[in-house]
C-alpha cells in the first residue's frame, strides 16, 4: 500500500506543480499584462523617455528644494531591492536616538517653523519604501520648499492640496500625499 501511495504522491505533486506553479502564474501574468500592463510592470513614471521612479515606491529626497518622505530603515535609504523596517521595539533606546536625530534634522531644515512635527515624518515606515506622507507632514514642509524655490507659500500649499488623496470611500486607509508625484509637479511649475 505504501509503495502505491508513494507513486501516486509523486505523480500528484508533479501535476499539481504544473497546475499551480506554472499554469496559474502564467495565466495571471498573461491577463495582467493584457488588461493592466502599466500596473503589472510597477506603475513606472517616465520623464523625457527615462524611468525616473515608480508611483508606488518612495524615493530618498535630501535637497531642501523638494518635499521629503518618511524616514527609511533600509540599509541605504529607499533601497527598493531590499525592503526593511527598523524592527526596533517601542522602548528601544536606539529608536529614541533615531527619532531625536530626525527631529533635529527637520528643525534645522527650517528653524522658523515652530509647529510640532507630525509623527509620520519622524518614524520609519514598515517597508522603508513608503511613497506617502500625511497632508499635515507636507504642509509642515511647505514654507521651506516655498522659500527655497522662490514661490509663494500659498502656491505650494495649493499644490499640496491638489495632490492630497482622501481616504478611499471616505473610510479606508489614510489621507495622504504621494511625495514623488508632488515633487515632479513642483519641477513642472517653473
Amino acid at each position: 500500500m505504501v509503495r502505491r501511495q508513494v507513486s501516486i504522491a509523486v505523480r500528484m505533486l508533479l501535476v499539481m506543480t504544473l497546475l499551480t506553479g506554472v499554469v496559474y502564474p502564467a495565466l495571471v501574468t498573461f491577463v495582467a499584462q493584457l488588461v493592466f500592463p502599466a500596473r503589472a510592470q510597477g506603475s513606472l513614471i517616465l520623464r523625457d523617455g527615462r524611468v525616473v521612479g515608480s508611483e508606488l515606491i518612495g524615493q530618498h529626497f535630501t535637497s531642501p528644494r523638494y518635499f521629503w518622505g518618511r524616514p527609511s530603515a533600509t540599509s541605504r535609504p529607499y533601497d527598493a531591492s531590499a525592503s526593511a523596517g527598523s524592527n526596533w521595539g517601542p522602548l528601544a533606546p536606539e529608536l529614541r536616538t533615531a527619532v531625536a536625530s530626525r527631529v533635529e534634522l527637520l528643525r534645522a531644515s527650517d528653524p522658523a517653523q515652530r509647529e510640532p512635527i507630525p509623527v509620520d515624518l519622524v518614524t520609519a515606515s514598515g517597508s522603508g519604501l513608503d511613497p506617502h506622507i500625511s497632508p499635515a507632514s507636507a504642509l509642515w514642509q511647505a514654507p521651506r520648499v516655498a522659500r527655497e524655490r522662490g514661490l509663494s507659500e500659498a502656491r505650494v500649499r495649493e499644490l499640496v492640496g491638489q495632490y492630497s488623496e482622501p481616504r478611499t470611500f471616505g473610510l479606508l486607509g489614510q489621507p495622504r500625499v504621494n511625495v514623488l508625484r508632488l515633487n515632479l509637479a513642483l519641477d513642472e511649475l517653473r
Partner: protein
Amino acid sequence: MSAVDGLELALYVGVLLALAWPLGTYMARVFGGERTWLSTIASPLERALYRAGGVDPSRAMNWKAYALAMLVFQGAGFALLYALQRMQSVLPLNPQALSDVPPHLAFNTAVSFVSNTNWQSYGGETTMSAFTQLVGLTVQNFVSAATGIAVLVALVRGFVGRTTEALGNFWVDLVRATVYVLLPLALVVALALVSQGVVQSLASAVTAATLEGGAPQPIALGLVASQVAIKQLGTNGGGFFNVNSAHPFENPTPLSNGIELLSILLLPAALCFTFGRLVKDLRQGWALLAAMLVMFVPLALFAIAAEHGAPPSVAGMEVDAMSSASSPGGNMEGKELRVGVAESALWAVATTAASNGSVNSMHDSFTPLGGLVPMFLMQLGEVVFGGVGSGLYGMALFALVAVFIAGLMVGRTPEYLGKKIGVFEMQMASVAILAPCAMVLIGTALACATDSGRASLQDRGPHGFSELLYAFSSASNNNGSAFAGLTAATDFYDALLGLAMLVGRYLVALPVLAIAGSLAAKKSVPTSPGTLATHDVLFVVLLVGVVLLVGALNFVPALALGPIVEHLRMH
C-alpha cells in the same frame, strides 16, 4: 479609537460574513461531491488530474490510509522544495544569479511551506530565485492549504458517518479543494490586486534615475500578485518581498489592503458554514463561528486602541502624535502611511487569529500591549479562525473538550454532533491541544538558556524575551509572522523552529484523523432531552471559556515576563 475605526471593523466583519456565507454553501457542495456551477470547466480538469496521478476517486480510505496518503504527499513536497532550493543556482529563472540556499535554511523553509506556516527566516527578494518562488513556494501555498481543508472534511465525515471506516479519499479532497476552491479564488484576487498596482512582471528588477539625480534606484519586480493572492487566501503568509504586505508592490492602496485583509479570514470563516451544512445542522457551524467572533472583535478593538497611543519614543519632543483629519498620529514606527494605524492593528489581529502570518506593518515595533494581542491569539492554538481547515478542526477539538467538561459536571457521557466522546477521543484531543503549547514553552526556554539562542536577539530585556516567545508561538502554531528583530537564519533557530512547525502541524492533524476514524466507527446516538445542546449561547460561552482558560493557564506567566513587564516599564 475613533468612530471611523469602529465603522471599519463593523464593515470588515459584515463584508466577511456576506462573502463567507455563499462560499461556505458552495464548498459544502464541492466536498459533498455534488455538481456546482464551476463543474463545466473544473470537472474535466479534475478527471485529468486523477488520470495523471493514477488515482481511483471512488476508493474510500480509512483513517490510517488517509493519514498515510497525506504524509507521503507532504513528504514528497518537502523533498522537492528542499532540492529546488539547494540547486537553484543551476536552475532556470535566476537572473540575479542567487546562490544555493544553505542546508539549514532550506530545511527550515521547506518545513515551513509544507506545514502551511510560511515562517521566513530569509528576505524573499534577496534569497529565493523566481523559479524557487514559483515552482516550489507557490505550489505549497496551494497544496498545504488544500491539505488543511482535506483533514477538516475527513473529520466532518467522522461525525457524519455511522459504523463505517470510510473517511473519503485524500486525493479527491486535495484535488477538489485546489481546483474548485483555491485556484478560482486566487485568480480573481490576483487580478484584483494587479488592478491596484501589485506587480506581475517577468522582469526581476528595473532601475530608476531618481529626481535628485544621485545614485540610481534599483527596484525589485517579479511575479508578485499570483503569490500574494494565494498567500493571503491559503493562510500561508509567505511574502514575495522581505517586508511582506508592507511593501507597496505587495499592497499598494487602501483598497488592496481591504482585499488582502478579507482574504485572510475568508476561507476560515466560510468553512464554518461548510461545516454546518455538512453535519446537516447549520446552527453548529454558527456556534463555532460565534465563538471565534466573540474572541476576535474585542481583541481587535483592544489592539487598535493600543496602537493609537503616542509612542514612547517621541515623548518629550515636539512631535504631534494626535490623530486628525490630515495626520494618522499614533505609533507609526514600522507602519505604512496609506494603511494607517487602525488597519495595521486590525491586520495584525486578523493574521494571527488566522494562522496566516502575513504582515502589513512591523509587529516588533508595536506598543507592548498591541504586540501582546497577536502573540496571545497564536498561543490560543490558532483556533480563532486559524488556518484554512486546521483552524476549524482545532476549534472542533476544543468543542470536544468543552462537552467533556460539561459532561463531567452533570455526570453524563459527553456527546458532540450525535457521537459519544470516549477516552480515546479525549486522549487524542489532549495531545493535539497540548503538544503545540509545550513546544512554545520548551522552545522559548531553550532559546533563553543557550548562547546560540540569545545571540540572535536585537533587543535586550523584556522585549528580547518577547521576540523569542513570539517566534516560538508563531512556529509552533503554524502562523509564520515574526517580531522580526530576531535574526532567525542561524543553524540553531532554523532547526528548532523547523521542529516546532512539524509538531504544530502533524501532532494536531494526525490525532484529528485518528479521532475521525474512531468517531466514524461509532453509532449515532439520538438526541434526548438530556443531551447538551451545542448550538446555543450557553455552549458558545462554555467553548470560549475553555479556549481562553487553556491559553491563559499555559501562557500568562510567559506573557508577564515579556510584553506585560515592558508595558509597565513604559509608564
